[in-house]
């Protein structure tokens, strides 16, 4: 156990060294969410000031953007940290070391969390300072939303990392594109009721749907939907287990295919 923790700490330190070595990388983590927030923040201000029917939903829009970013950046943070190993042709060194797959996954999760905090917290503060939108007004529910979205982002990150190990650079673009598939289905900007009836089961099979429905309940009615969050957490436990199993299976498949040694060339 101690050895395991030591290896997780070693890998986290390795990723932290990379992050620390480049101020541009640090800036990049904040840059995209901040730019996105500015665009949506101005729209929020415009709608809020217009006194139109849309004014009441302006806050929903901004909350949705912030939470979607948690999901998106969480997955990017996980996958990009893993891709560092491919780009630096270091994967064989790691696979030859006593590092276990779950230890690698744990260090990637930790790093994803660190990157998320660096990228999201300043943007949440910026949103409050510039547009007066206090994301923390969602109350303790925010923590539940954050936790569930992060867990989902890790489950997806594990699958993408496994696909990159198995398929090589061909699967790299999934790091950017995979989340876009979820965007229309997990009802970020509209309620599930807006979807055609036949898509409802699909939407409810996706964990972010629970979070965004929960967010709407918190912002519109001021209620925290515990039922939604518990269901979401249970579903996330299943997806995280499936994500890790897929990661290990794809790693094993790469060992059969013989790609680990030349990965990155």
């Amino acid at each position, binding site marked *: 156990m101690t050895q395991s923790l030591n290896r997780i700490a*070693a890998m986290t330190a390795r990723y932290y060294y990379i992050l620390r*070595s480049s101020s541009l990388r640090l800036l990049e983590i904040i840059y995209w969410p901040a730019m996105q927030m500015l665009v949506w923040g101005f729209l929020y201000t415009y709608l809020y000031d217009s006194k139109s029917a849309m004014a009441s939903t302006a806050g929903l829009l901004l909350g949705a953007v912030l939470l979607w970013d948690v999901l998106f950046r969480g997955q990017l943070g996980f996958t990009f940290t893993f891709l560092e190993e491919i780009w*630096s042709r270091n994967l*064989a060194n790691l696979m030859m*070391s006593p590092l276990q797959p779950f230890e690698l996954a744990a260090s990637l999760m930790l790093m994803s969390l660190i990157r998320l905090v660096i990228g999201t917290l300043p943007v949440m503060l910026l949103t409050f300072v510039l547009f007066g939108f206090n994301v923390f007004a969602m109350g303790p529910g925010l923590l539940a939303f954050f936790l569930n979205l992060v867990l989902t982002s890790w489950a997806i990150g594990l699958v993408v990392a496994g696909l990159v190990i198995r398929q090589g650079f061909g699967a790299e673009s999934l790091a950017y594109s995979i989340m876009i598939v979820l965007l229309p289905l997990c009802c970020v900007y509209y309620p599930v009721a807006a979807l055609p009836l036949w898509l409802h089961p699909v939407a409810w099979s996706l964990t972010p749907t629970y979070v965004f429905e929960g967010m709407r309940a918190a912002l519109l009615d001021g209620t925290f939907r515990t039922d939604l969050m518990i269901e979401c957490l249970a579903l996330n436990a299943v997806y995280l287990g499936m994500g890790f199993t897929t990661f290990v299976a794809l790693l094993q498949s790469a060992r059969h295919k*013989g790609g*680990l*040694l030349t990965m990155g060339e």
Partner: protein
Amino acid sequence: MSRIERFLPRRHLTSVSPNTTPAQNNAPDRPNPDETPAIAVEGLCKQYRTHWAVDDVNFIVPKGWTVGLLGGNGAGKTTTIAMIMGLVVPSFGRAMVLGHDMAIERHKVLSRMNFESPYVALPGRLTVRQNLMVFGRLYGVANLKARIEELIEDFELGDVLDRVTGRLSAGQKTRVAVAKALINDPEVLLLDEPTASLDPDRAEWVRSRLRAYQKRRGATILLSSHNMTEVEQLCDFVVIMSHGRVVAMGRPGELAERFKCRDLDEVFIYLARVA
């Protein structure tokens, strides 16, 4: 029977046996038949679609020996080493290291072995010190700072210690990579062309360090190389592969004699052409 075997009499496929005599380095006089070999490769095969990259390879490496794995490009050396490391799962047969099957229980032995290859890089954005620290912790090295100090001294890394690894020269990178490969004081060391891309002076320097380590630790080394001088200097025994199969085995001097060649270089060329 393979195409190569038709050209070569069976006597060229001699394995390391208890009667095999010593080697030039620190190897024991004879392998102990009762002792588990450091590496045992048994009927090892790897098929990629219709192509057999490795085809029924058998050899053992007794503890404390340095064995060279030779062959031209595409002979199957790297795939064989990858299967010994457990990075590639064999289609048939097995590769055992210190008594453990590397396809299924590699985690039991990984902390006792290490490897170096110029085709696998260390993280280029980390400094040399950071890389040694990270790998030392991954291998669970006790008293890591002291071990790193030893390696700094042995491999003259003091002047590059706080430099970013990716910006070092090829020679400096090789020194760092070999230092990383020795960080856990491995019992079994796998080296894939350890001096490729080095000038003769630096290559000899690296060889001298490997010899010193082997002598001090009594480690087992499996080395793949195209440099026959290097193999003659370092290895107690050589295994020559061609088209995925072992075509000859023996001590470097014996092989030259057996094939009526002046040196290992000529043996290599002869076997490559026959194959």
